[in-house]
C-alpha cells in the first residue's frame, strides 16, 4: 500500500527500471532505521525495554465505558434494545463449543501485566460480541487483514469505509477478493466475505469517502482503526476525531475521546500507532516524520531527462494533455491502453536521449505512483493494530505507548517509542497558530509557507479573513471561477490586501475537516 509521498528512487543494484525501491520512509525516520538498527540483543533490549521503562498508562477516564460497570450498563441497554427488536434473540445461535477459548483466557483470568482497571469477567466477551463498535477505515491490504483479525478476536459490530473498487492488481495481497469480484466496491466484498466466514459477525460496509460521513457517524464508534494509504485521508480522520473533543474551561472531557489506531506500510516497512486524540501525539504532531512530496523538477522533465522515470513523467505530464490520445479522458493508471500509450511515448523520448530502462512495468509504477505493497508487511502491521484495539477495548493489557516501526529488509527489526505531542500542533493543541510575515510579504509567500512548512504540509489551502466586518476570500484554489477571481491577490502584499497586525486568517484545506485559524503577526 502506498503512502502519499511519491519519491521514487532506484535501487543501486538494479538495471534501470528493473527493480524499484522507494528511498524514503514516510512512516518512520530513516535515521531511526539506519542508525539504530540492531541485531545485538543487548543493544536491542536497551532500546526496546519491555515493562521496565514502559510508563504505566492510566486509561483516560473517557474510556470509562470499558469499565465493567459501564459494560454492564451498555449491555443491559443493548439487550433491551435487542429484545424490542427481535424478541430477545441473542447471538443467532452461531457460537459453538470452544469457539472463543483462545480469547477468553485473556478476559477471564487475572494477570500481572493487565491494565490497572482490568477486572477479569465472563462478561467482557459479551461486551466485545454485542456492544463494542469498531470502525475500520480502508478495505485494502491493511483493511482486509484488520477485518479478519478483529472478527476472530471477538468483535462483531464492525463498520468499514472504503471508496475504492477492486482492481486486478489487488488480488495478490488483499485476500478477501477473488478475480470475479473485480470492479465491485472493496468494502462490500470484504464485509460479505467476513460475514460469511465468521458466523455472527456483522460487518457493515460503506462504499464512500471518509469525507462523506459526518460527525454523528463517527461519534457512534468506541475505537477507530485506520488502514489507509493516503496521508491526507489520515490527517482528515485525525482532524475529525479532534473536532469531536469537547473542552470545558479548557479541560478536555475524556468521554469525548475516541481512540485512533493507525497503521501504514510501504514495501518491507511499516508502522502502527495508538492515538488518544487530545491526549497523546496525533498525526499532525508528527507530520515531520512524513517528508513532503518531492517531484522531479519540471526543467529536468522538459529539457534534460536522465532517468527512464523522467521520460515517463514527460509523456504523462506534458504529452498526454497536449495530444489527448483518448479525447478528453484523463489518464487512468488502471487502463492498459492508457499505460501502453504512455509507455510508447516514453520509449521514444528515452531513445531520443539514449536513456535505457523504460519498461511497461516501470511506466505503470510511475503513472500509478505505486510504492509496492507486500502481503506480509500488511499482515504484520494490521496484526499489531488489532492487538491494540483488543487491549483498549478490554483493558486486558496496557496499550502501546505509542508508536512502533517495523522493518524486515535485513533481519526483523522493530523500534517502539513514545511520539511526543507538539505543543503548538495545528490540529490538536488548541494553541492559536501564528504566522510571522512582514507587511510587505506577498500572499503568495503565505501560501507557500502553508504548503511547504514541514509541520503544516497543506495541499491547496483556501485563505479567508474578515475585513470591515465582511468575510473575504483572499485565495481559493478548488473552485475554478473563484481561483481566477482571487489569483491576482497572490501578487499583492499583505498590506495592500488591507490586512493588519494581529489579523485572523481562516485556512481550510483537504487535510482537515476543520478550519485552522492563524494569527498574522507582522514582523518588521
Amino acid at each position, binding site marked *: 500500500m502506498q503512502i502519499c509521498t511519491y519519491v521514487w528512487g532506484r535501487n543501486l543494484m538494479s538495471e534501470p527500471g528493473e527493480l524499484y525501491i522507494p528511498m524514503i520512509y514516510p512512516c518512520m525516520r530513516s535515521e531511526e532505521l539506519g542508525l539504530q538498527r540492531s541485531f545485538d540483543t543487548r543493544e536491542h533490549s536497551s532500546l526496546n525495554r519491555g515493562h521496565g521503562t514502559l510508563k504505566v498508562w492510566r486509561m483516560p477516564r473517557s474510556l470509562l465505558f470499558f469499565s465493567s460497570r459501564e459494560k454492564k450498563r451498555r449491555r443491559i441497554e443493548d439487550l433491551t434494545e435487542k429484545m424490542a427488536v427481535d424478541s430477545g434473540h441473542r447471538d443467532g445461535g452461531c457460537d459453538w463449543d470452544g469457539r472463543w477459548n483462545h480469547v477468553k483466557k485473556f478476559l477471564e*483470568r487475572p494477570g500481572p501485566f493487565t491494565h490497572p482497571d482490568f477486572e477479569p469477567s465472563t462478561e467482557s466477551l459479551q461486551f466485545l460480541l454485542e456492544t463494542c463498535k469498531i470502525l475500520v477505515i480502508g478495505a485494502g491490504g491493511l483493511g482486509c487483514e484488520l477485518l479478519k483479525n478483529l472478527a476472530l478476536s471477538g468483535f462483531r459490530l464492525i463498520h468499514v469505509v472504503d471508496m475504492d473498487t477492486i482492481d486486478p492488481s489487488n488480488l495478490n495481497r488483499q485476500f478477501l477478493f477473488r478475480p470475479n469480484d473485480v470492479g465491485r466496491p472493496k468494502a462490500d466484498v470484504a464485509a460479505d466475505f467476513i460475514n460469511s466466514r465468521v458466523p455472527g459477525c456483522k460487518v457493515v460496509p460503506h462504499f464512500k469517502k471518509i469525507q462523506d460521513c459526518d460527525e454523528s457517524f463517527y461519534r457512534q464508534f468506541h475505537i477507530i482503526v485506520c488502514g489507509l494509504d493516503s496521508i491526507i485521508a489520515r490527517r482528515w480522520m485525525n482532524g475529525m476525531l479532534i473536532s469531536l473533543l469537547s473542552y470545558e474551561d479548557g479541560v478536555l472531557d475524556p468521554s469525548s475521546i475516541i481512540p485512533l489506531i493507525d497503521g501504514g506500510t510501504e514495501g518491507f516497512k511499516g508502522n502502527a500507532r495508538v492515538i488518544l486524540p487530545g491526549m497523546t501525539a496525533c498525526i499532525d504532531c508528527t507530520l515531520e516524520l512524513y517528508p513532503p512530496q518531492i517531484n522531479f523538477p519540471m526543467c529536468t522533465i522538459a529539457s534534460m531527462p536522465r532517468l527512464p522515470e523522467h521520460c515517463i513523467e514527460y509523456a504523462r505530464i506534458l504529452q498526454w494533455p497536449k495530444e489527448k490520445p483518448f479525447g478528453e479522458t484523463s489518464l487512468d493508471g488502471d487502463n492498459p491502453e492508457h499505460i501502453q500509450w504512455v509507455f510508447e511515448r516514453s520509449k521514444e523520448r528515452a531513445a531520443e536521449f539514449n536513456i535505457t530502462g523504460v519498461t511497461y512495468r516501470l511506466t505503470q509504477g510511475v503513472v500509478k505512483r505505486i510504492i509496492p505493497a507486500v502481503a506480509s508487511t500488511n*499482515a504484520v502491521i494490521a496484526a499489531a493494530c488489532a492487538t491494540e484495539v483488543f487491549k483498549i477495548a478490554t483493558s486486558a493489557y496496557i496499550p502501546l505507548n505509542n508508536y512502533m516501526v517495523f522493518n524486515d529488509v535485513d533481519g526483523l527489526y522493530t523500534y517502539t517509542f513514545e511520539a511526543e505531542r507538539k505543543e503548538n500542533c495545528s490540529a490538536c493543541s488548541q494553541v492559536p497558530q501564528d504566522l510571522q510575515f512582514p507587511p510587505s510579504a506577498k500572499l503568495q509567500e503565505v501560501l507557500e509557507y502553508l504548503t511547504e512548512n514541514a509541520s503544516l504540509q497543506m495541499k491547496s489551502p483556501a485563505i479567508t479573513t474578515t475585513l470591515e466586518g465582511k468575510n473575504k476570500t483572499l485565495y481559493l484554489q478548488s473552485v475554478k471561477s473563484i481561483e481566477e477571481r482571487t489569483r491576482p491577490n497572490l501578487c499583492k502584499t499583505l498590506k495592500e490586501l488591507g490586512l493588519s497586525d494581529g489579523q485572523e486568517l481562516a485556512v481550510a484545506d483537504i487535510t482537515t475537516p476543520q478550519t485552522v485559524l492563524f494569527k498574522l503577526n507582522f514582523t518588521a
Partner: protein
Amino acid sequence: MSVLCAFRLWGDHGQETLENAHVCLINATATGTEILKNLVLPGIGAFTIVDGHTVTGEDAGNNFFLSKDSIGKNRAQAATEHLQELNSDVSGNFVEEGPDKLLDNDSEFFHRFTIVIGVQLPESTCLRLGSVLWSASVPFLVCKTYGLIGYMRLVVQEHTVIESHPDNALEDLRLDQPYAEFQNHIKSYDLDSMEKKDHSHTPWIIIVAKHLEKWLSEHNGQPPKNYKEKEAFRQLIREGIRKNENGVPEDEENFEEAIKNVNTALNPTKIPSAVEDLFNSEQCKNITAQSPCFWVMLRAVKEFVHNEGNGSLPVRGTIPDMIADSQKFINLQNVYREKAMQDAAAVSKHVESLLQSVGKPAESIPEKDIKLFCKNASFLRVVRCRSLAEEYSVDTVNKDEITSCMDSPDSEMVFYLMLRAVDRFYQQHSRYPGVYNYQVEEDISKLKACVNSLLQEYSLNVNIKDDYIHEFCRYGAAEPHTVSAFLGGSAAQEAIKIISHQFVPFNNTFIYNAMSQTSATLRL
C-alpha cells in the same frame, strides 16, 4: 493473478524462484495458516500441509482458514481446501499424519521441500525434525505463538545472499582512485573554458573530481580527511562557481550539489569487512566440483581483486541521479557502466578457469549471474545459523548471550526461557500449563519448578520474575489470532527471503512481545 507489486520488490528472477518453491507447513493452526496465506498470495509454486490433528471448536474459532463445518475433519485437509482457494496457480497438498509418524515411515520425506515451517511443535518433534533437516540441508523455520508471545527460530546451515538490497548503501564512485577511463573522461572537461550553460550542467562528480585533482596537487597527494579539511575543500569548490560581470556568484545548483556530496564523494573505496571475511572463509579457499555457484563466483571476485582490480572490488557501474543535462549525465553513466562490464568480464574469466580446474563446463554459471554478482559484490551476505542441537546441548548452549541479556530482567530473553520451561512442563505433564481456568493457580508452582530445573540444568545464574511464570500460566497455551497473524506476516517474509535468496534473514531467534509491541533477535 497479478503479482505486479511483488515483481517490483524482488524482481522477475525472485518471482521465478518463488514459483518453483515447494513449502511444507507442519500444523495448520492459526499461526500456520496465516504464514501460508502470505506465501500463497504472492504465488509460491506448491505447499504441503502435514497435520494429523482433527479440527476442534477452538481451532475453528481462531483460524480464518477453518470454518464451523471443518470441525471433526482432518486439519491438514480442511485448511488446504480453504487456502487453495486464494490462488489457483498454487498447488496445494496435504498429508493427514503427524511429522513423527511420517519420519518413522520415511526418514527422507521432508528432503523434497524448499523449506519446512514447523508450527506449535512439541520440543521432541522439533529437535528430531531439526536434526533430519540439518543433515539434509533443508532450511527449517520453527514458529510458535504462545499467548502474547511470538517465537521464531531459523535453522539453516548456510544461506547465501547476493541481492541483500541494503537501505543505505554507499555509492561506488572511485573518486579516490579513478580508473583510466574515468580519468580520461574527467580530462575531457575544461571547466574554465566552458560555455556558461555547460558549466552549470556539469555533473557534480566531475566538479568534485576536478577540484580534488587541484587539492591533491596542493596537499602532497593527501585527500581532505577531517572536518576542517573537508570544509576547506567545500570552500575550494564554492570558489569554482562562475561569477557574473559584477563579481556576484551565479546560481549553479550543480556546484551546490557537489558541496553537499563532499562526504559521499570522499568515501574511500574499500572492501567491506563482511566481504573480506567471506574471502577468508574455507568455502572460498577450497573450490571443488561440489562448491555452490556463490562460492565459485566469490572466489573469482577475490582473484579479480588480487589481480585486475588492484585491491578493489569490480566497479558497481551505477551513479545516483544528479543535476546535469541528458548528454553529460549519460556519458558519465556510460563510463561507469562500461567499466563495470569490463570488470565483470574479467571476473567471468576467473570463473571460467575455476570451473575448468574442477572439471566443470564454463557455461554452468551463466554470464548474467556473474554480472549480478559483481554488481552486488559489496553487499554479499552469508547467514550461518547454529543448529538446534547446538542450542540445546548443555555443552554448547550460548550462555553468554542468555546471561548478558538477562542482566535486564525484562529483556525479551525472558520469554525464550519461559517457552523452554513450558516445553519442559509439557514433557513432564503431557499438557500445557493453565489450559483450563481451574489449573492456572496450581500450575504456577509446577511451572516454576520447570523454570528452576531448566536454569539448573544449563547452570544459568539468572533470575526470572514470578510475574512471567504467572503470565505464562494465564496464557494456557492460547494462540490469539492477532499474535498468530503477526507471526504469519513475519515468518512468511523470512521464508520468502530463504526461497529467493534476496534480502537478509534473521539469525537465529526472534521474539515478539505483543504486550509492549517490542521484539528482539537473539543468537542462540
